[in-house]
């Protein structure tokens, strides 16, 4: 049923929960696990100091993605694809789905920033709304 599962991550607690779920499914279905971090070009911007911010975000993305890979390996997932992309997050996610023929996207409902904690993360919302691929959304347990 699932051959390729994508779990985009921003390193948030909620994304970590999504990773758990994605790893569980990848193991159960013997599917390839894809993960990637998107350096948001709209946030890092090309204006003043952009390059420094960009490099830092990219390094952070690599750290976050490495963490996912380690957890997937520990769980016994055989095929893992990890990368750091640059672009507008939701569009990068949709493009990735198309390019790799992804069967399922797993995402946290809450984004990283404070404001989004009360709403569905805007990236998840856009993906839910525009993706042709099924989207599994995972939330943090309510406090």
């Amino acid at each position, binding site marked *: 049923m699932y051959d390729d599962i994508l779990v985009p991550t921003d390193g948030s607690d909620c994304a970590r929960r999504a990773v758990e779920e994605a790893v569980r499914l990848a193991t159960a279905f013997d599917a390839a696990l894809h993960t990637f971090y998107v350096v948001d070009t709209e946030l890092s911007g090309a204006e003043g100091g952009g390059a420094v911010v960009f490099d830092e975000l990219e390094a952070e993305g690599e750290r976050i993605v490495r963490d996912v890979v380690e957890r997937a390996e520990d769980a016994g997932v055989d095929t893992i694809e990890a990368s750091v992309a640059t672009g507008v997050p939701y569009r990068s996610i949709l493009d990735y789905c198309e390019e790799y023929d992804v069967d399922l996207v797993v995402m946290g*409902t809450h984004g990283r920033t404070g404001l989004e904690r009360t709403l569905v993360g805007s990236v998840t919302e856009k993906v839910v709304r525009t993706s042709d691929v099924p*989207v599994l*959304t995972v939330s943090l347990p309510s406090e």
Partner: protein
Amino acid sequence: MRFLVAVDGSRQSEQTIEYAVELAEATGASVTLVYAVDPEVYSEGGMEPISSLSDADQRLIIEDIEDAERRAEDVLDEAVRIAENLGVEVETETIYGDPVVSIPSFAESEGYDNLFVGHQGRSERTERVIGSVAKGIVERSSIPVTVVR
């Protein structure tokens, strides 16, 4: 694993049933189909006779709660047929209230593991105005939700 599938009789909900049933077969999960009867929509009747065109416009859309329940039955019957055609036994539940609120809370209180909901392909502009049930459910659910298109 116990799956809960939100149905509303739309084409998307048919696809969602097929999807959830296939996944349930692969994982050995049970499937329950749920329909939310939304009384608010159907209980706006007034005591006064219709006296103007705008009254008529507002009140002729009123549907009796029993009609709404009959519709729930029809939708669930059809949903069960879809699942049975795929060779799977499913259970059904009828609940009351705005689906965006009642479905996630039902899923949580009944201890389901995953909720499945179809997503209608509306334009961004339309959705900003009338919203999306799928999005509302994702927002409120504490259990994982799979949005199927």
